């Protein structure tokens, strides 16, 4: 890590250290016609080191506001927060973080090398070390061939790539990424996801903001879902997606008899493409139903705990707010 005096936290330690912690963090801009506050209200979160944390929600829910508060770009109207133990906005933790904003926007007249060198120099990096780091990052984000093109001639995807590079110029322990894959084609998006997982493997902490719930599902360890500036759901992704006491049996190649039998046994059934899905409250009930189906000659396609998708979690959480 560049210029850091802090003890490294790799993976899970005996004592859990927090990368980010907020207490009732609020940024209220105004109140709307019905008297509801506009902005961010009472956000309390904890992000452990080594996690990939997702701040999810629709556009306008306060994600970017939260990000800006954490980075000290704007100031809270109430509450407080810490990053690596330092209060929000202080320069002390900025040595260890990287930030990729939505957009992103850079000095138009610089090319890839100049831009990264500039950002690197802000950390006090220089000379051969900086040049080597710049080259390394340009290769990493796939911009090496286009390193002499000026930012003003960049495509959206190129901006995103160079943005990721500058966010990592100081080999940060904590990365803030706002709408990481916006503007990227599926291959580019996939590369970014791969990168995040690599970073997690290296023990880094990643703080993601996104409205693309489907993409976030495989990446995040924990999430907070925001809606209209308020937190409406939080937890480990695994826990959120798991549905208590719901077991799912999906069969194919079934006879009408079997389907009638399953309808009787299960809490509910749903036909899906070529399959019949049956849901049981009880693991044993599901198992016995599976044995019956197998005995009747059907093919067991799936048998296990039923998982929701993050989207379903979100809709449910938001719906609860209305």
């Amino acid at each position, binding site marked *: 890590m560049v210029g850091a005096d802090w003890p490294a936290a790799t993976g899970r330690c005996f004592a859990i250290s927090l990368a980010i912690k907020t207490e009732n963090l609020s940024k209220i801009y105004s109140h709307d016609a019905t008297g509801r506050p506009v902005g961010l209200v009472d956000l309390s979160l904890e992000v452990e080191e080594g996690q990939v944390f997702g701040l999810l929600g629709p556009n306008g829910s306060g994600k970017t506001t939260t990000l*800006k508060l954490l*980075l*000290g*770009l*704007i*100031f809270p109207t109430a509450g407080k927060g810490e990053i690596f133990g330092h209060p929000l906005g202080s*320069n002390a933790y*900025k*040595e260890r*973080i*990287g*930030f990729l*904003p939505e*957009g*992103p*926007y*850079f*000095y138009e*007249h*610089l090319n890839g090398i100049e831009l990264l060198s*500039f*950002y690197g*120099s*802000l*950390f*006090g990096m220089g000379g051969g070390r900086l040049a080597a780091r710049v080259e390394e990052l340009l290769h990493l984000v796939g911009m090496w061939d286009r390193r002499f093109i000026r930012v003003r001639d960049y495509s959206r995807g190129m901006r995103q790539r160079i*943005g990721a590079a*500058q966010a990592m110029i*100081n080999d940060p322990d904590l990365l*803030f990424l706002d709408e990481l894959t916006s503007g990227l084609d599926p291959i580019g998006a996939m590369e970014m996801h791969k990168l995040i997982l690599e970073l997690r493997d290296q023990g880094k902490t990643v703080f993601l903001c996104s409205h693309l719930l489907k993409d976030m599902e495989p990446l995040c360890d924990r999430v907070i879902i925001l809606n209209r500036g308020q937190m409406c759901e939080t937890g480990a992704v695994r826990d959120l997606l798991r549905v208590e006491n719901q077991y799912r049996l999906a069969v194919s190649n079934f006879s009408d008899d079997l389907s009638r039998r399953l309808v009787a046994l299960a809490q509910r059934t749903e036909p899906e493409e070529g399959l019949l899905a049956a849901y049981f409250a009880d693991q044993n009930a599901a198992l016995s139903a599976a044995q019956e189906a197998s005995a009747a000659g059907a093919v067991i396609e799936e048998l296990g705990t039923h998982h929701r998708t993050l989207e379903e979690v979100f809709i449910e959480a938001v719906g609860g707010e209305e």
Partner: protein
Amino acid sequence: MRPIFRVARATFHEAWRRRFLNGILVFAILIIGSSWVFAYLQPGAELQMVIDIGLGSIRFFGMLIAVFLGTRLIPDEIERRTIHTILAKPVSRAQFVFGKFLGGAGTVAANLLLMGIAFYIVFAIKAPQLQAQKPEDALIFAAMYSNIAKAILLSFFEIFLVLGIAVVASTLFSWVLSVIFTFVIYFVGQMSDFFQQLADPERGASKAAQILLGTIYRILPHFEIFDIREAILQGTYTPWTTILRIIGQGVAYLVVVLLIGYLVFNEREV
């Protein structure tokens, strides 16, 4: 401390490319060069006109560049959102403001240098001719070379002060308002002796007026101190102690202005 210079250098490179400012520079140099021609219209006042138009152009166009560059340095970063990635790095807002100012000052200085050189060339060519016409002014001419160089040096600091005010104004007001504000402060500061005259009890100023006008006089930057035109035309030798004192006052005031800028910008949300 280093981030200041990194930001400054980036600012300088960016500002140098602005076509509008380069246009002003070219125009200014043309005017300075053409003061040669203007002078022919006015037999008997040639030297005066060369100096007035030359130095006047440097100060006027330098001021324009300072105002239009200075009022955009910070707002552009905020509006174009390039500031976000910078302030997310270990760069304090103070370092950012000072760095932007320093880069702007470098740009302005480069412009002034070019204009100053152009003017000095015009003057150096014209002076011997004019001296031949008026030999009794030999003493005046002898002192003029150093006086003009000193005047150009002083104009640097005058324009730096304008730039500082422009940058700080841009953190307080909208762009249009900050431009107007800077122009007003500049022109009113040029005639600060007016407030001194108004506040003079011998002119019948009331106690309240004395205090109010005296305070205004105290707060205003006194831009007229940078003007040594009289010395140039009269051939008075201006000692370096005086020049340094004037520069010192200018720099002191600039420090005050930048300090105000720091206090304001530190709480500025981006």
